């Protein structure tokens, strides 16, 4: 499978998409801690165990900040 664009904290980043990849794997690849971030798939908040395909719009955003 090819590369894939993901929105991470408002900016697009390119990642390698593998078959059966889940959001949690994606977070791992992006070095994002799931304790501090949430994910939206096609505009909806979803479980990080959700699988993704090339057609999906994925957004990962931080929700835990100091202060």
């Amino acid at each position, binding site marked *: 499978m090819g590369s894939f664009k993901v929105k991470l904290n408002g900016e697009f980043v390119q990642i390698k998409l593998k078959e059966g990849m889940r959001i949690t794997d994606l977070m791992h690849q992006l070095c994002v801690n799931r304790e501090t971030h*949430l994910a939206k798939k096609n505009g909806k*908040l*979803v479980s990080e*165990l959700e699988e993704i395909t090339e057609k999906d719009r994925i957004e990962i955003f931080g*929700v835990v*900040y100091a*202060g």
Partner: protein
Amino acid sequence: MPVSCSKCSGNAMVYLPYGNENLCKKHFIDSFEKRVRRTVREFKMIRKGDRVGVAVSGGKDSLSMLYMLKDICDSMRLELMALSVDEGIKGYREGTLKVAKDNCRKLGVEQKIFSFKREIGITVDEIAERKERMRTCSYCGVFRRWILNKAAREMGLNKLAVGHNLDDAAQTILMNFLRNEPFRLARFGPIGGVIKHEFFVDRIKPLIRIPERESAVYSIIKGMNIKFGRCPYAHEAFRNRVRVFLNDIEEEFPGTKFRVLNSFMSVRDALGERYNTGEIPMKCKECGEPSSQEVCMRCQMLKELKCEK
């Protein structure tokens, strides 16, 4: 294929690793609200006749707590007020105060805003400009607590709810261990009032069993329109290190934060007995507010900043 909710056939919108559960919107809200209600009940945080104040910054934790306490207080026919503090942080606090105001209006909760400039005589931005000083967060925390306690008392409130969540609690517990400050730990807990004084308003922490990330989920579901952002002065290096450490461990060993809190709770009474010095707070000779020393921390800090009010 969407992931199914562990409790029904609906689509899951959140995964809770510590329980290995996927929850849909309805079951997440049920679980969240049940936990907060249980905490309030277990520690008898709110009783009949109480006048409850909620410290509302406009962030996810304080607003999630406001939504919950509004419900709880309405069912008990209790008064509820929101107290907000404007520390004077340009480009940050205006936005969160607007969100706080909008949500208070939506819920029909009266909100009072107290500013550092008016109550203390200096803003956080002005403190940050001073050269010889401690970390900005140190002043901000002391001044904010001073304002909230005084304001709540003067408004006739006897409880002040603060949005400390499970992450904050686990960090505080660990930090006190790492700094070898068991006397501080002995004062920590879901409810304040370890040191009783007529001038102290009891602080309660209804979200102490809610992971921070879940209050974010709740705030999104409830449409609170939160701006997830970071205070520009949030440089408390030690807490940040502990936060990152706990989040890394939690990711690998889900449930760690709960275990830190539960371990502490199981030795809390013993700590209280060991470190309860029977200390009776006095009134600060400068401002008249309760203090463990002749001059309270707020007044000492103000002197340092050469900005007595």
